[in-house]
Structures are given as structure tokens and as C-alpha cells.
């Protein structure tokens, strides 16, 4: 399996209410072991997956939002947030947890993985995918 493909995961649903966010994260983390190029998109209600201070205890669900902070350790360094989706929901990038990675080509400097993008930019990210997984 020497070939490297570009995997783009689109996350469109709220973290709770359906299982898609959690089962998407499970694919992303396991897929990371395959040394493929991985990009994540959060749009529509999917932007809620990254909001800070989640506390789903009241609905009896596990708070898996902390797991996103590990994405950098899995060499997932390109995380695209749809600006329009944030604005439609009265959110800004400051409402989301900051996801970072350590750049091995730059003395392991900590850098942000978050890229706030327009719909037009999202289209080109989606267009770059060899494999598109929509959750």
C-alpha cells in the first residue's frame, strides 16, 4: 500500500443527537495509522463538534470533544472550518477549541491546525480529495 491518497472527511452534524460525529472521529483516528494525507472539514452543524467547554453529562453521553486535541499527534494538521456555518450559528472561531500540531520541519514549533475558510475555498479542498467521507 505504497500509494498515498488524499482523504477528506466532512463533518456536518452536531456532536450529539446522532452518532455520526463520534463514528467519524473513530475512522479518522484509525485511518491515521495508514500514512495517508488527511484533511478534516467542519461545516453546517459539524462546527459544534469543536466548541469549547462541552458538557454532555446531562444527556448521559461521553464527552469525546477532548479527543480532537489529539489530532495533531496523529499528524492531522489541516482542519478546515467553514466560516459561513459559524456565522449562521452566531459562533466565531473563538468559540472553538484551538487545535495544534508540532511542526517537525520547524524545530517542533507548535502551530495551529485550524483554517477558517470560505465556501469557495472549501470547494477546492473537497475537489482535491481522492477519497471523500461525509459524516
Amino acid at each position, binding site marked *: 500500500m505504497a500509494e498515498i491518497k488524499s482523504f477528506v472527511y466532512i463533518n456536518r452534524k452536531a456532536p450529539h443527537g446522532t452518532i455520526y460525529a463520534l463514528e467519524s472521529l473513530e475512522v479518522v483516528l484509525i485511518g491515521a495509522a495508514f500514512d495517508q494525507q488527511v484533511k478534516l472539514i467542519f461545516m453546517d452543524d459539524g462546527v459544534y463538534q469543536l466548541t469549547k467547554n462541552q458538557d454532555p453529562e446531562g444527556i448521559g453521553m461521553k464527552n469525546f470533544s477532548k479527543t480532537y486535541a489529539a489530532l495533531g499527534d496523529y499528524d492531522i494538521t489541516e482542519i478546515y472550518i467553514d466560516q459561513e456555518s459559524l456565522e449562521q450559528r452566531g459562533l466565531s472561531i473563538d468559540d472553538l477549541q484551538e487545535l495544534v500540531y508540532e511542526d517537525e520541519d520547524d524545530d517542533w514549533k507548535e502551530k495551529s491546525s485550524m483554517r477558517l475558510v470560505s465556501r469557495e475555498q472549501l470547494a477546492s479542498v473537497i475537489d482535491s480529495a481522492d477519497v471523500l*467521507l461525509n459524516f
Partner: protein
Amino acid sequence: MKFTIQVNTGPFTHQASDSAYRFTLAALESGHEIHRIFFYHDGVNNATMMCAPPQDDRNLQVLWTELAAQYELDMVVCVAAAQRRGIMDKKESERNGKEFANIAPGFQISGLGQLVEAAVASDRLMVFGD
């Protein structure tokens, strides 16, 4: 062309697994290759042998099992998704202290790595259901 099919919804509530089945059949009959069929989310419910729809209705599990036997298809059910939803083979059933196994012939329990490997190895990943 080499396809991998991903099925994300169970039978009956949505048409997606019927569509996945029909696409798979059409692809095979047109001479294409099916690298793997991967069942995820509620799609794992296609693999239970406990479905007993009315006699004049289709039974997708049986259709999948027959298709897999005819074309020697690799049908994989995600282990984590399956355990959540009560789909188990004998080994997983015993490991979880359950009394029964219910996975139908032709389906195998395996991990999400099989989905990623299949996506890399195939020309197209076709996803059915949301």
C-alpha cells in the same frame, strides 16, 4: 473499475442499502470489480441473520449473503459499530459474555482499517446512506 462500497444505513427504513445492493449487482454484471463492501453506522444491521420480513418483501441480508457467495465478495462489518448495535460473530459474542451470535453467512467482523485500506486500494469509494 475497482469499487469499494460503504453501506451506512440499515435495511427497510431507508432505501440506501437496497441501492447499494443494486449498484453492486449492476457493477458486477458489467464486469467491474468489487474490492470490498464495508458496513458502518447502522449499516451493520444488514448483517443480522435475525431479520424475518414478510414473505412477499425482500430480505436484504439474504440477498447480500447470496451475492457474496456467487461472486466471492469480501463483506466486512465494522467491529466497533457492530458491537454497539448487537451484531456479533461467535468469537465476539463469547468475548462479551453474550449467549448468541447473529452474524449472517458471508459477513465478517473486522476493523475500520479495512475501510481505509479499501479506499486506498480502490478506484472509487461509493458511499450509500448518510
